[in-house]
């Protein structure tokens, strides 16, 4: 038995070669897997930042036109108004409720990258019966549907960031 074993050690080179190449292959694949995750992470940081500034743009647009021209004070106030070179006609109006009488919303495209924002403006009476405005802006890095003029085109890399302003 021993004798046969000593004589039959030719396969060792093959075993060694397979071992080395499989170790190198697994190292390569694991580095690639980690890098891919890092890549997706940094891409989501970039997309998240553009979604955040889309939300900020929508918020400032609503805040400006609420304070300059009272576009969101009543159902009948004038429109349209312009943000980001886009003419906006607000949707919504009187809710019929005594405590939160008005709710408006609009959607705007922001820039050429497809970023857009969905903005909701609510007028309500707070605990001290003072009329209060709440603006909620949801920004997206992509997803502007230019045919339907809405901010809801699905995409696998769509990121949402939202901002809320109450005054």
């Amino acid at each position, binding site marked *: 038995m021993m004798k046969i074993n000593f004589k039959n050690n030719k396969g060792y080179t093959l075993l060694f070669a397979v071992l080395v190449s499989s170790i*190198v292959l697994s190292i390569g694949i694991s580095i690639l897997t*980690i890098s*891919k995750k890092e890549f997706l992470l940094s891409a989501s940081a970039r997309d998240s930042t553009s979604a955040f*500034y889309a939300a900020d743009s929508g918020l400032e647009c609503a805040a*400006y036109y609420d304070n300059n021209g009272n576009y969101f004070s009543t159902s009948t106030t004038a429109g349209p108004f312009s943000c980001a070179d886009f003419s906006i006609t607000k949707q919504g109006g009187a809710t019929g409720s005594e405590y939160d009488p008005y709710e408006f919303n609009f959607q705007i495209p922001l820039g050429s990258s497809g970023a857009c924002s969905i903005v909701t403006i609510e007028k309500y009476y707070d605990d001290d019966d003072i009329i209060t405005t709440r603006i909620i802006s949801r920004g997206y890095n992509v997803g502007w549907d230019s045919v339907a003029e809405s901010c809801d085109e699905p995409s696998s890399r769509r990121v949402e960031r939202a901002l809320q302003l109450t005054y």
Partner: protein
Amino acid sequence: MKNFLKQNNKGFTIVETLVAIAILMIAIAGPLTIAQKGLMASVYARDQSVATFLAQDAMEFIKNYRDNNIRVGLDWLDGLDDCLTLNYCSVDTTVGTITNPASSVPLYRTESGFRTTGDARSQFSRKFSVEQLQADTEAKVTVIVSWTTGTIQNVVTIEDYIFNVQL
């Protein structure tokens, strides 16, 4: 039979050796290339994350500059109105100075963060523009951070629409 075995045991022929080396080379070089590409993607991911935050840094500086202009009663874009698309500005956010070199300015790593002056030049350059879309009302801010990974030029661009909001 004994004779045949003896002859075959003398070792590899040159052709066999070359084939074996070629197979091993492919088996090692392939995974090593995968690993190298993975590391390159990691470097890109890191640089893209840094570039995104550098762009955000400048954007928040500009928004704060606008807020401060409104607070002290200056024109809301005072100090920013020369930063047009064809005439880009640069900002050192550590000391808060805006310059108008009309092109990207390299950033340097210092103890107090990325500055426009210093000894250790980083791979990042930054510029921004402020375009007034509606006089006294709306402006589009674009921050562009560019860097090179190897020989490839990369860019992160973020856009924000700011308004002359006076609550």
